[in-house]
């Protein structure tokens, strides 16, 4: 039984960042975590998948590009088990990093399940702790299957990313249900490590939330690497046995069958709102099952109880949760942080080529009736991309016709995840395409493609 200023339930990227910011602002803070600090992101999400994707990238580079670069190799052997264990090490290091950050900021870590009680109290184990200022719910989300059609995650034949990250070897074949960021990243990984991959997406294209051209570019790259894709395809029935699954798909009025050794479920995540005592504490949910919050303050329907991260609603992204954590910490400390502008949250898929974006797709901008102009620049016309032999992809900027405001930016290609931030900074600070061009870009760099895309939107592109 202890009293803190703030108790954060959940030690993922939303929760632990919130706790650190609280501590920086002089608030005594506790974090409740039932598993490892760092949450899904650090332990079974962002970090280990990126470690595996790096292995996949090196494999593909050696297989498809080494000879041209003057590197002769013998037969290249891929060992998923080894790559997996390296990814575990990276995760563990990161989790320990979070632990030491908690220590450094004198944040109390309460191990166990946190249950909300009335009056800003949180029960952990047998103990009840009191928050004098705020309780922050940051319990995140988890993988889910589709039991209605026979695709319940059995952790053997039907798996989720949670299991995929611990496989000792890759299956001979795998069907991935859902072609969002998670599905596409695992398609990339398993393909590189030798599985026959089939990617199934119910919406009309892979990465359905990205700009259409980005989806097309990635699909083209995947096709080249023999990743099978079925888009606009609904799984109607699944027959799961011990060593394989047979999926029946319906696409464009036709029925087809996909057989695979394993099925990876990557179609959405379920939020962790159960067994938290939410209804008892007066915390309401939305119709879609997220915790209902005031969009400006992230306060729930229970006064003094805030909610951040996945459980507070989409987009379910670590960096969105972290920002919400900082926001709530500053509010609780009596500051007046600037509102979070959800239009400026970048989104990244780390397959190869990488896909990164901020703001609206061209399709969405037009659907909203905005008067926009589009600028594009392909990496095939960029010197630095050529030197690396990585000329897939492009930069695309959607700008407002009248004012030049950056409405959306989309990058497909090598290092897109890093490049996008120039445009995130620009968009967040309301620089228009003209300011982007005004900044002198070093030569030769991939970033030049951004300046060129900005110029292209103004009708002044130089290098094509």
């Amino acid at each position, binding site marked *: 039984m202890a009293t803190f200023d703030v108790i954060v339930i959940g030690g993922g990227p939303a929760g632990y960042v919130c706790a650190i910011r609280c501590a*920086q*602002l*002089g608030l005594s803070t506790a974090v409740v975590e039932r598993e490892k600090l760092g949450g899904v992101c650090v332990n079974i999400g962002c970090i280990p998948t990126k470690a595996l994707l790096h292995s996949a990238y090196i494999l593909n580079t050696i297989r498809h590009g080494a000879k041209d670069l003057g590197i002769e190799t013998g037969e290249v052997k891929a060992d998923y088990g080894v790559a997996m264990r390296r990814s575990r090490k990276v995760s563990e*290091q*990161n989790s*320990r*990093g979070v632990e*030491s*950050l908690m220590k*450094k*900021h004198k944040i109390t870590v309460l191990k166990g399940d946190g249950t909300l009680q009335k009056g800003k109290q949180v029960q952990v184990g047998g103990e009840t702790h009191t928050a004098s200022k705020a309780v922050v719910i940051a319990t995140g989300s988890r993988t889910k299957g589709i039991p209605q059609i026979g695709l319940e995650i059995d952790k053997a034949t039907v798996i989720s990313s949670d299991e995929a990250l611990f496989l000792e070897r890759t299956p001979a074949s795998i069907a991935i249900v859902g072609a969002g960021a998670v599905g596409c990243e695992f398609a990339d990984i398993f393909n590189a490590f030798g599985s026959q991959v089939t990617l199934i997406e119910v919406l009309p294209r892979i990465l359905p939330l990205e700009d259409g051209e980005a989806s097309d570019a990635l699909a083209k790259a995947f096709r080249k690497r023999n990743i099978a894709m079925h888009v606009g395809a609904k799984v109607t029935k699944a027959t799961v046995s011990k060593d394989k699954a047979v999926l029946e798909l319906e696409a464009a009025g036709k029925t087809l069958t996909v057989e695979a050794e394993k099925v990876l479920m990557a179609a959405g995540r379920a939020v962790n709102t159960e067994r938290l005592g939410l209804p008892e504490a007066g915390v309401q949910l939305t119709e879609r099952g997220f915790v209902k919050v005031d969009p400006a303050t992230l306060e729930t329907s229970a006064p003094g109880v805030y909610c951040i991260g996945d459980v507070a609603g989409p987009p379910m992204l670590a960096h969105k949760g972290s920002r919400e954590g900082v926001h709530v910490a*500053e509010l609780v*400390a*009596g*500051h*007046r*942080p*600037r509102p979070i502008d959800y239009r400026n949250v970048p989104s990244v898929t780390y397959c190869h080529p990488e896909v990164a974006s901020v703001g609206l797709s061209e399709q969405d901008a037009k659907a909203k009736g905005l008067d926009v102009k589009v600028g594009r620049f392909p990496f095939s016309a960029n010197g630095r991309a050529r030197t690396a032999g990585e000329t897939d992809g492009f930069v695309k900027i959607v700008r407002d016709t*009248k*004012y*030049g*405001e950056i409405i959306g930016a989309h990058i497909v290609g090598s290092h897109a995840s890093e490049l996008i931030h120039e445009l995130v900074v620009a968009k967040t*600070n*309301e*620089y*228009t395409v*003209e*300011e982007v061009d005004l900044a002198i870009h070093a030569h030769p760099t991939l970033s030049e493609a951004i300046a060129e895309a900005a110029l292209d939107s103004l009708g002044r592109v130089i290098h094509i």
Partner: protein
Amino acid sequence: MPTKVVMEALSPTMEEGRLVEWKKQAGEPVAVGDVLAEVETDKAVMELVARVGGVLLRHTVEAGATVPVSAEVAVIGEPGEAVSAAKQPAAAPKAAEEQATQPAPGRNQPVSMPPAPSPDADGASAATPVSGAAAAPPAPSPPGTPADRLRASPLARRIAAERGIDLAAVQGSGPEGRVIARDLEAAPVRTPAGPTVAEPARQPPAPLPSSGFTDVPLTQIRKTIAQRLAQSIGPIPTFYLTTEVDMERTAELRTALPEDGRPSFNDIIIKTTAMALRQHPMVNAWWQDDRIRQWHDIHVSMAVAIDDGLITPVIRHADQKSLRAISAEAKDLASRARERKLAPDEYTGGTFSVSNLGMLDIDEFTAVINPPEAAILAVGRIVAKPVDHEGQVQVRRRLRVTLSCDHRIVDGATGAMFLKTLKQMLENPLALVW
């Protein structure tokens, strides 16, 4: 001369590192930049590199050991230096000179960022917080039309130009009060007839911490004064003015107040100072490098000693508050300051400071200006002594106060006139309610 190799802070949060593997062995030559060892930090395995060249004389710790930042891990000697020097470990470390090149990244950085000033819509508190430690060199403002000085995002400028909105009349809600596109949604459109009637932009009552200010552009003479004085005496050319105040009447009136909730002399001085500042806006100001910001609101910082330093909680709108309210607030702020329970916005955003050491029997002293404020008042103790009073020697309670002034903002006469007002008010306490 042997040089110590120490465990460096390889990440800003690193407190100790595990020496994973030695890459250089005793006796091996090393050049600047050579990797000496691999070190596992709280985040990653990183490389410890040599900052001096020579010969690695010995490892002080074995691979696998965990070592706090700054502790010695090895010794590098000059090429000629015999490895045998390593045989006398007792002598070597003493003579060893810590390798002094660039400090390890993060080592000297504050462990945490100072709390960001809250981006209030009015931009008032977005300026330098009271701590003001990071006096970054001012960005030279490019010469140009006044419009260039307006803080507005490029997008906001473009929209304003297109729609005929006067940006100067728009309250910004972006960083440091910058006008962003959102702020233009409700902005009045400039009429072709002329500039929009400047509506009194400051609505009372002001939200915390301040509702407005007047930026006074620097005249050439002020610029020259500022430059010359700063050259002469340091970045804040300070001078001091002392006056002695007769406190008899104030003391009498104070005693007349009910004991429960009776204001301290300090409370009275804070209130009086705030009232005097009303009449002397030049003293209620901040130095802003390219201009002087005269605050319209009066927020008095009071220096409070705490265990390991001092902090300056702010009594906002001290001129408008009753003595009783100030007394209660000062008590609350001081006690929470000592418990370290102040929120950052409770100790930032002051426009003038008062420091009182009277309770510690200090007769008079000079206080150090809390930048960017223009001045600080140092309050000594009230002491009864014989003085000339209306032609007779009387024992009267007297108080010595000293005003430290930033000469770039406040000239001698300006400061003196402020002190005179303060003195008159304290000697005629009715002025407080006048």
